[in-house]
C-alpha cells in the first residue's frame, strides 16, 4: 500500500466531517443574507442618484459594495468566534463548527476588504471607495471589537454600518455626499433598532451566556418595547422628509404615509403589550411587526426608485 492509498483509506475510515470546509462555508462567512440587504439598498442608492454611468459600472459598484459588506461579515465572524461558540444560534457557523479556521476567515476578510475598496475606487471613484473602507472599519473595529460587547445600544451603532450602502451607491454615481444620501442613511439607521429588537423579543437568544449586553437582557423586555416605540416615532418623520427632497415624489410620499401608519400602529401595539400577553399568543404581534419591518424598508426604497423612473419617463407632477 502506498502512502497515497493509505491516506485515502484513512480518510475513508475517518470521515473528515466538519474539519474540511466546502466552498459554501467560505460563502457563509460573508453572511449572504446580510449581503442581500446591502445589494438592494446600494442598488437603490445608485438608481436614485442624479447622473448616469454605463450599466456595467452599476453592476460592478453593487458587486464590490456587496463584497465589502461580506468581507466585514467574515472579519466579524473571525473576531466573534469565541462568543459564537457559546451561543446555540451561532454555534453552527463555519468557525465554531471547526470547518474554517480563524486565520482563514481573517485572511479572507482582510483580502476581500482591500480588494473591494480598491476595485470600487477604480470602477467608480475614490469617495465611494473611501466610504466603503470606513464602513468596513466601522463595522469591524467600532462595532464588533468595541461597542458590541460594551453597550446595550450595540444594535443602534451596528445599524450605522448597515445604513451606509445607499450612501456608497449614491457616491459611486455623483462622487459626493448630499442631503438625500444622508437621509437614506438615516432611514436605515433608525429602522434597524425596531427591526432587530422586535426579533430579539421573540427569538430568545442566549446572549447572556456570551456576556453580550443585549437590551432585552440588560434593561428587560418592557424597556425594549419602549425603545421600539421611541425609535419608530423618530423613524416616521425622517422617512417622510426624504419624500420632499430631490429624489422624493408622489409615489414615495404616499407609500411613506401608509407604511409609517402601519409601522407606528405595530410599534404602539408592541409597546402596550407585556410578556404575559405576548406569550399567550406566541409573540404574534412582535412576529408580524418584524415581518412588516422588512416590507417597510423594501417598499420605501422601491417607491423612491419608482418616482425616479416616473420622472425619467416624463411623468413629473407639479414641482416634483
Amino acid at each position, binding site marked *: 500500500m502506498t502512502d497515497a492509498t493509505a491516506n*485515502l483509506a484513512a*480518510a475513508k475510515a475517518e470521515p*473528515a466531517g466538519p474539519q474540511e*470546509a466546502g466552498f459554501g462555508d467560505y460563502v457563509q462567512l460573508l453572511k449572504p443574507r446580510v449581503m442581500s440587504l446591502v445589494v438592494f439598498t446600494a442598488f437603490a442608492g445608485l438608481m436614485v442618484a442624479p447622473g448616469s454611468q*454605463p450599466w456595467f459600472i452599476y453592476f460592478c459598484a453593487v*458587486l464590490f459594495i456587496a463584497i465589502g459588506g461580506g468581507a466585514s461579515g467574515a472579519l466579524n465572524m473571525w473576531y466573534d468566534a469565541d462568543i459564537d461558540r457559546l451561543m446555540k444560534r451561532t454555534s453552527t457557523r463555519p468557525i465554531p463548527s471547526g470547518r474554517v479556521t480563524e486565520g482563514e476567515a481573517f485572511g479572507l476578510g482582510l483580502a476581500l476588504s482591500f480588494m473591494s475598496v480598491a*476595485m470600487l475606487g*477604480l470602477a467608480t471613484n475614490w469617495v465611494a471607495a473611501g466610504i466603503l473602507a470606513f464602513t468596513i472599519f466601522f463595522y469591524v473595529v467600532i462595532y464588533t471589537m468595541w461597542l458590541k460587547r460594551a453597550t446595550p445600544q450595540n444594535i443602534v451603532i451596528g445599524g450605522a454600518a448597515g445604513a451606509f450602502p445607499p450612501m456608497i451607491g449614491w457616491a459611486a454615481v455623483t462622487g459626493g455626499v448630499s442631503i438625500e444620501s444622508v437621509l437614506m442613511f438615516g432611514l436605515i439607521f433608525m429602522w434597524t433598532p425596531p427591526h432587530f429588537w422586535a426579533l430579539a423579543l421573540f427569538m430568545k437568544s442566549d446572549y447572556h451566556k456570551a456576556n453580550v449586553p443585549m437590551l432585552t437582557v440588560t434593561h428587560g423586555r418592557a424597556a425594549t418595547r419602549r425603545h421600539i416605540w421611541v425609535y419608530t416615532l423618530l423613524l416616521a418623520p425622517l422617512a417622510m422628509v426624504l419624500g420632499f427632497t430631490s429624489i422624493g415624489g408622489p409615489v414615495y410620499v404616499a407609500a411613506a404615509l401608509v407604511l409609517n401608519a402601519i409601522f407606528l400602529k405595530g410599534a404602539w401595539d408592541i409597546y402596550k403589550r407585556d410578556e404575559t400577553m405576548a406569550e399567550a399568543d406566541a409573540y404574534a404581534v412582535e412576529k408580524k411587526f418584524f415581518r412588516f419591518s422588512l416590507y417597510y424598508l423594501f417598499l420605501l426604497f422601491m417607491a423612491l426608485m419608482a418616482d425616479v423612473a416616473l420622472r425619467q419617463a416624463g411623468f413629473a407632477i407639479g414641482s416634483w
Partner: protein
Amino acid sequence: MAIRAESEMHQRRFGRNIGVALCLVGFCAILFGLTVAKVRQGASMEAFDHAPRVSITPPVEESE
C-alpha cells in the same frame, strides 16, 4: 492501481477548487468588462497621452 478520490473530503475539496476557479474567471471577466466600459466612456482620457492632436488643439485665427 489508479488512485481515486471518492471520500466526502475530496468532494468538498473539488467543489472548493471549482468555486475558486469560477471566482477567478469571473474576476477576469469583470476586469475585462470594466476596461471596455471605461474605454468607451473615453472623454476624460483625451489629452493625457502626451501626443499633439489636431482635434484637441485650440483653433488658430487667421491673420492677414
